[in-house]
């Protein structure tokens, strides 16, 4: 089984390499190769998941040695790993297939599909890794492939800037993560997850709280949580399938997965903080999504908000629920992103929802599957999101009321902005010529939509999950089932989505080219539109504080290091050489004279006359 895992991990890297070396000019072959690779990954992942021999597969070997310290390379395939492996392989495969249609007429297909393969490699690495340093290596690799793929349309300033922003903001979080890893090694003496699980004790100290908060920095950066959330909405400048794969279903969820992998390290205080921040993010992103016009940005903010739910679930001590929501979210969010991709493709890359309208009649399959996604994320009863989100809400209701209030408000907002998106884009009259000319796409694009739609409906029934996939979820979900106030939560959850549906129906069913909220509640609209000025604050910080500080450092560097120390010592040597050059006349008599002087000086010195 280890060989299968190794094969699965390195196959996409090989495919990317072949694409890079031989297929740079040949788009069709490169895309076929990449899709076949992802299909092979899916098959190998399934065989790993349904391997009956081992409950938990742990394997490792020496990667390299530095003196007495060695770095291990290994796999830890346990229950959460299996579930994420399934999500990554399955959603990854569907998105590869979708990309065949979506990127069919793109001139840089080899670069795109090569990037996807590198992404699959790094994401599988994170999923399988059994120690923190290996996770960190692949962590950086997903960051790199995300950068590569956001910058696919690098000729536009928007996506070039967005890719840099994503990379740099992620680096900030990763720096904390790296320090956290070093601190972990310092405190526990190992970075292996299994050994850490044995060593970790639950007596919180300053070191252990700092340590897990630092490790959580990695999660904050990668999952775009407050205060590093600014990169994700901008990352939508990349191709839509990339947004679906990386910025909705898998990579941003890797942050949550990291938390689940190391949940034994977390202290009570750190968990409380993460829960509260997550809930706050759920609400904040909801307000932002409410006023966006760009279909992908709405979905991006909704991803932020759902990641907040996962963080909140984790923070309240229910990693199983977090992983459950991660799984259902991966299905319905990938579905909606691919749906938006289908719409964008049909409307010639128009992304403003107020220029759509009436698409349901023109693209029925996309509209129906999109509606399923909307139902799932809003928590409409018996769709997948209903189960995962209401489990989190119920848990919060029983254990942490402030978090529950934030999450519940977020749930209402979620259904409002999701139904708004649906009504504005798919119902009413078409408001642009592109929308009027839109046609349903080919089976390459609708096929993945249908499959994801089915999963979005049934993904919530965890009892139909095979035992290999569902075992990690079962513990937390059975606790959640036994909690009191179950019926009450069903009623509350239903109220949340019905309120959202009715509000959106009344407000957005007959819109023109502008948002009704901007006239109805201008002050509120402005505040939401400003996104609480995070970008402006960061820009202010960088241009007014950080930049001058750097320039100050630069001047100091010029003055002291390169001025005084480097140039100074060189200048001293030059001065000495100029002085000694004066003695160099080239005439024999001068030298003879110096020789005499030297001899006399030496004689005087050796006779000891000077000392007396």
């Amino acid at each position, binding site marked *: 089984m280890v060989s299968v895992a190794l094969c699965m991990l390195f196959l996409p890297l090989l495919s990317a390499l072949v694409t890079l070396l031989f297929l740079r000019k040949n788009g069709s072959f490169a895309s076929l190769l990449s899709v076949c690779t992802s299909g092979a990954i899916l098959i190998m992942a399934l065989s790993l998941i349904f391997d009956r021999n081992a409950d938990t597969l742990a394997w490792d070997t020496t990667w390299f040695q530095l003196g007495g310290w060695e770095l291990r390379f290994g796999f830890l395939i346990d229950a959460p790993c299996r579930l994420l492996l399934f999500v990554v392989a399955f959603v990854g495969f569907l998105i590869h297939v979708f990309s065949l249609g979506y990127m069919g007429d793109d001139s840089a297909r080899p670069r795109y599909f090569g990037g996807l393969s590198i992404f699959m490699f790094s994401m599988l690495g994170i999923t399988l890794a059994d120690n923190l340093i290996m996770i960190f290596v692949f962590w950086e690799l997903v960051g790199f492939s995300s950068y590569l793929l956001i910058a696919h349309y690098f000729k536009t300033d928007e996506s070039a800037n967005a890719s840099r922003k994503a990379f740099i903001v992620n680096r900030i979080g990763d720096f904390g993560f790296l320090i956290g890893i070093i601190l972990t090694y310092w405190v526990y003496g190992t970075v292996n997850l299994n050994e850490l699980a044995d060593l970790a004790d639950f007596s919180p100290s300053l070191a252990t709280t700092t340590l897990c908060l630092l490790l959580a920095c990695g999660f904050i950066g990668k999952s775009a949580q407050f205060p590093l959330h600014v990169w994700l909405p901008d990352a939508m400048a990349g191709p839509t399938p990339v947004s679906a794969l990386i910025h909705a279903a898998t990579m941003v969820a890797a942050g949550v997965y990291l938390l689940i992998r190391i949940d034994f390290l977390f202290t009570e205080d750190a968990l409380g903080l993460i829960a509260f921040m997550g809930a706050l993010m759920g609400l904040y992103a909801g307000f932002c999504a409410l006023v966006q016009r760009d279909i992908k940005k709405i979905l991006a903010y909704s991803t932020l908000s759902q990641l907040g739910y996962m963080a909140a679930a984790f923070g309240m001590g229910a990693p199983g629920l977090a992983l459950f929501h991660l799984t259902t979210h991966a299905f319905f969010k990938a579905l909606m992103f691919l749906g938006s991709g289908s719409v964008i493709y049909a409307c010639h890359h128009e992304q403003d929802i107020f220029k759509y309208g009436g698409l349901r009649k023109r693209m029925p399959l996309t509209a129906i599957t999109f509606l399923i996604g909307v139902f799932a994320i809003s928590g409409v009863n018996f769709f997948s999101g209903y189960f995962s989100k209401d489990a989190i809400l119920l848990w919060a209701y029983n254990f942490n009321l402030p978090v529950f209030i934030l999450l519940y408000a977020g749930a209402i907002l979620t259904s409002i902005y999701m139904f708004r998106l649906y009504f504005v884009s798919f119902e009413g009259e078409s408001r642009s010529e592109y929308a009027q000319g839109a046609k349903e796409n080919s089976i390459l694009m609708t096929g993945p939509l249908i499959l994801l739609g089915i999963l979005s409906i049934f993904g919530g029934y965890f009892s139909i999950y095979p035992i290999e996939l569902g075992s990690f979820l079962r513990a937390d979900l059975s606790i959640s089932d036994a909690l009191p106030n179950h019926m009450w939560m069903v009623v509350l959850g239903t109220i949340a989505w019905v309120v959202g549906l009715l509000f959106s129906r009344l407000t957005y069913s007959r819109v023109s080219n502008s948002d009704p909220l901007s006239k109805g509640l201008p002050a509120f609209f402005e505040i939401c539109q400003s996104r609480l000025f995070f970008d402006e604050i960061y820009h202010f910080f960088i241009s007014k504080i950080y930049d001058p500080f750097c320039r100050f450092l630069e001047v100091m560097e010029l003055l002291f290091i390169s001025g005084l120390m480097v140039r100074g010592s060189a200048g001293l040597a030059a001065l000495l050489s100029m002085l000694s050059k004066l003695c*160099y*006349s*080239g*005439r*024999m*008599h001068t030298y*003879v*004279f110096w020789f*005499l002087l030297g001899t006399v000086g030496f004689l005087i010195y050796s006779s000891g006359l000077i000392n007396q």
Partner: protein
Amino acid sequence: MLTITPYHFLILSILLVGVGFLGLLIRRNILLMLMSLELMLNGINIALITFSRVGNNLDGSIFVFFIMTVAAAEVAVGLALLVALFKKRKSVLSDDMALLKN
């Protein structure tokens, strides 16, 4: 009556070395400079023989043989160089041989 003591020999040796050195400094002709060098070496030889005599051993005398050998070899090489230089530059003045400067 004036007796000749080792001091007189040493004074003679210093004078010879001094004359040779002054010659080396003042003369511009390389042939004469070589001769001045020989003068200095011979001055040193006298000092060494004096020490040998005073110390009643052969160390200094043996050393003198070495110096004479070296001096002979040096003169041979020096003169050969000088002849070669003269063929090339048509001059034996040391002032014309400052080409290495700059």
